Structure formats: C-alpha cells, structure tokens
C-alpha cells in the first residue's frame, strides 16, 4: 500500500486500464519537462556566477577594497566606488521613505476612492515600469540644471529615490491594507483621531512591509548604471567625499552631499570597457562584491519581515 501519491508506483486494481495509463504518462512527461527547464535555468545562472567568481576571486583582497582606482590594474581598487554606493543608497532611502510612506498613507487612509485616485493608482504602477534611463533624463533636467545640485551624491540619491518611489509606495500600500479594519475601528472607538490612529497603529504595524519593500527596491537600485551616468557620475575618483563632521561650529557638514560621485556598477563598466585583460578581472571582483551587497540586503529584508511577523499578530 502506498501512502504517498506516487503516480508511477501505485499498483492498478485492474478494472479500468488503458485511459488511466495514458493520462499518467502525460503527467510524467510534464513533470519531466518542468524539471528540465528548471535545471536549465539554474545551470545558466550557476555558469554565470561561476564564471564571475573564477575570474574575480583572485583579485579579491583587503587591498582591493581599500584602494582607489588606478591605471595599474593590480593596484586598482574599489574604495571610492563602494563608499559611493553606500552613500547613494542611504540618500536614496532617505529620499524615498518619507515620500513613499506619506503618499501611501494619503492614498489609503485619507483620499476618497474615486476615479482620480484610480488614475493615480494606475499611474504609480506604470511609473514602476518606466525605464530607468528616463528617470536619469528627468533628474538631469530637474536636479542638475533646474535646481543646480550638480553632478553630486545628492543628485544621485534623489534620482534613485525617484526611481524606487513607486515600488516603496506600492509595498507600503499593500502593508497598510493588511492592517485589519477591526484594529482601526478599535482605535477610533476609543476616541482616537485619524492622525493618532495612523501614527500609533497603521504606520507601526505596516512598517515591516514598508521596510521589506524598501530594501528589495534598494537591492535593485544598487545595480542601476544608466540613470547615474546620465546625471554625471564620474568613473575615476581617487579621493573620498568630505567627512560629515568638521571642527568648527556647527560641527557637522553637508559638503559631502555635493561631492562628485561614483558607484560600483559604474566602476565595473569603466573597467570592462578597457582593453587590458587584467581590468576585466577587476570588474569581475567588483561584481562579486556588488552581488554580496545585494545578498546582504535581501537577507536583511527577510530578517526584518520575519521579525515583524513574529511581533505583529492580529
């Protein structure tokens, strides 16, 4: 007797023969086909990753992480690139989070549901699909030429912030919608205002979804190249941005925001487009680091989601 539903193992009791056998064959064929496609997809991915690791692993060293780019491939490193990426990501998050949460709260909790909000909703979904180079062009016109923010970290952060804003809004709205109406009613029934209900319940309980969405959006933005080239990223930076502190009053400085920037994928692009083979190895090594960054961000997203799931029960 078989407890499992093993289609090839179970014995027939012999009353109905032919048609069952044929249908079970079709079942097997489909399962096999599915397995082949999955293996194929995984194999391609593994081959790409393997190639990258094989090329780059030799160049990975402390020196590689702590050196500026150089015209000598073996002395070149990604210090300015990875620090640039970290700064741009922070600015991106700072730009996208308040705008994204604010827009999502307004749309879910305050706005009346009519054709205008429907139109806005459709267009937010559309914005998430706009090619990133278009955001680059918009940012070049707006932040660089109109607001004179320069080819700076600030421009880069704002550009990528605009790029991921639709994703943050969508993730936050989903999270807000998952807060049950009974919880809102409990708050209102105690005499809470709309703002108190939003501040004390809706926002904290949906924070897990918002943060998860934000980090997943950031892990996509971390590899963006085109819009940053458009707003004027430099590909050779042999210095660090200004420190955020200073010795005179008010002891902090925002000068770093206006410094020229580069990021990891741009450094990689620069190295790949050089003729020397050794620079290609540097690009592969930088690729490994970039992938590790993405993996860390995804792991962070998963752990935040798990933490909030453990803390919030309806």
């Amino acid at each position, binding site marked *: 007797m078989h407890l499992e539903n093993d289609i090839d193992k179970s014995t027939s009791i012999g009353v109905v023969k032919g048609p069952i056998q044929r249908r079970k064959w079709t079942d097997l064929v489909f399962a096999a086909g599915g397995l082949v496609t999955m293996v194929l997809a995984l194999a391609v991915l593994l081959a790409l990753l393997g190639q990258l690791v094989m090329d780059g692993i030799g160049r990975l060293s402390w020196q590689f992480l702590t050196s500026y780019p150089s015209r000598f491939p073996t002395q070149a490193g990604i210090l300015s690139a990875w620090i640039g990426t970290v700064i741009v990501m922070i600015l991106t998050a700072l730009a996208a989070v308040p705008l994204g949460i604010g827009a999502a709260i307004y749309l879910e909790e305050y706005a009346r549901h009519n054709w205008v909000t429907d139109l806005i909703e459709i267009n937010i979904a559309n914005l998430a699909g706009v090619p990133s180079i278009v955001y680059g062009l918009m940012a070049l016109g707006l932040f660089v030429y109109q607001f004179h923010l320069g080819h700076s970290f600030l421009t880069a952060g704002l550009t990528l912030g605009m790029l991921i804003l639709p994703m943050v809004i969508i993730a936050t709205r989903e999270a807000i919608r998952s807060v049950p109406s009974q919880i809102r009613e409990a708050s*209102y029934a*105690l*005499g809470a205002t709309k703002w108190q209900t939003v501040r*004390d319940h809706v926002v904290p309980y949906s924070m897990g979804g918002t943060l998860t969405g934000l980090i997943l959006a950031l892990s996509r933005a971390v590899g963006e190249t085109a819009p940053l080239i458009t707003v004027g990223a430099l590909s050779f930076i042999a210095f660090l941005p200004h420190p955020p502190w200073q010795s005179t009053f008010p002891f902090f400085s925002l000068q770093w925001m206006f410094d020229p920037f580069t990021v990891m994928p741009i450094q990689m692009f620069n190295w790949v487009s050089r003729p020397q083979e050794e620079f290609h190895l540097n690009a592969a090594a930088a690729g490994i680091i970039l992938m590790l960054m993405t993996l860390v961000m995804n792991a962070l997203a998963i752990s935040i989601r798990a933490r909030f799931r453990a803390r919030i029960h309806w």
Partner: protein
Amino acid sequence: MATGSDARLPVKAESKALSFYYGALHALKGISLVIPERHATALIGPSGCGKTTYLRCLNRMHDLYAGNRYEGEVFLYPEGVNIVAPSVDPIEIRMRVGMVFQKPNPFPKSIYENVAYGLRIRQSVRRTELDEAVERALRDAALWTEVKDRLHEPAWALSGGQQQRLCIARALATGPELLLFDEPTSALDPTATARIEELVTDLKQRVTIVIVTHNMQQAARISDFTAFMYEGKLVEFDRTEIIYTNPSNKLTEAYVTGRFG
C-alpha cells in the same frame, strides 16, 4: 411601550425616529428607543434586522465610512445633546461611549499598552496615574489576577476570552458613560462566554450597557430591557421578562419562542 413603573428610571440615551442609510440602502427605519441608565439593554432580532447598525449609531462609528447618513435624533443625557447631528464631533462622542466588538480585537501591543491607549490619546498622563488606571480597568474587567505578572507581554498571547476581557478593560479605562457590546461572545467558547456575561452583569451597576446578541438565552440572562428589531424597525421594547414571557406582539412571540430567525 415601557411599562409605567419604568417611566421613572433615569434615561441615558434616547433615539427619536432614527433612520440610517448605507448609501441608498435604508437600514434603520424610524427607531424610537429609550435606554435606561445603569441597566443593560439587549438588542435582539434576526440577522440583518439592523441591531448592529443601530448600536454603531450610538458612537457614530458609521462616520468612518463614506456614503452613510443619519436622519432623526439620538439624545445622550445628562446634556441631552443630539449626538448624530453633523455639528457634533464624533470623536467627542466616542470619548464618552465605549465599544466592545464581535471579534476580540486587541492591538498588537502589550497588555499594558492596550489598556493604557485610550488614556494616552486623551492627554499626557503621569506614569503612576497610568499604572493605577490600567490596574483599575483590568480589575473591573476581571482580568487583573490572570495578567498582573505579564503586563508587558503581547496581548495576542492571551486566550480568546482573555482577549475579549482585555478589550473590555481597554474600553473601561477611560470611564465611559455608555458601553456598547456588539455580539461580544459570538467568537468565544461557552466558558469564556459565561465569564463575559458575568462581567456584563457586574458592570451594569456602574455603567449603562447596550448589547447586541444573537443568543436569546444570553439576552434573557443578562439584560434588564430588551428591544426586538425586525427589518430595520423596532417591533417591541419592554422589560426583558415581559418580552420573553408575555410579549404583546405576535412577531416578537414567534421570534423569542424560536419559530423564526
């Protein structure tokens, strides 16, 4: 419709020709009902008769959703202000009229924070006062001995019946004048139900209670007055024992004897 001796009872709330519309749906049709102070009034009737709709008029809960409309008046005493008038702030009404819902709905916060929330949103209260108020409310809701050692643990770790008593404590903490119960035991087992009923019986000495229930035995056990509603109208209102033993309306009699509904 109430008998002569009840006319002397102080009145906590009174609706006069109250009609209510969900958009185009006419859900309540001219309900006139007196709610005596410090007694429990039960609203009974078959599903869809409007009893929950009526209950949610008493704390202006319907204002949360677009397209709802009140007609007529609901007076809340001692001031005698018409609480469904558009000029009256629903938040002020909800600060005086508490509510306990059908399904226990504690906030995903600690037990302490659940009870303290109503006070926190009113004004900044000193920690010691807050501690006292939380303890008082939990004692009033017969929950204190069970939770006093784990006030800062999450509320969702409590059993369903404890969660519902926590929701009662949360509503009591702010000292409401009127407490609305919307089928508070429909999601609970018989033991937890008995404890809630006992609690309601205790509470009605101090606070006016209106309770919607599907369970006719429950209405008979815990209420002093019963209103029978049918298709958005008030069919009969009287002392509970009269409704159950000697109703004047055929429809009421058919419902309380279990012949329909």
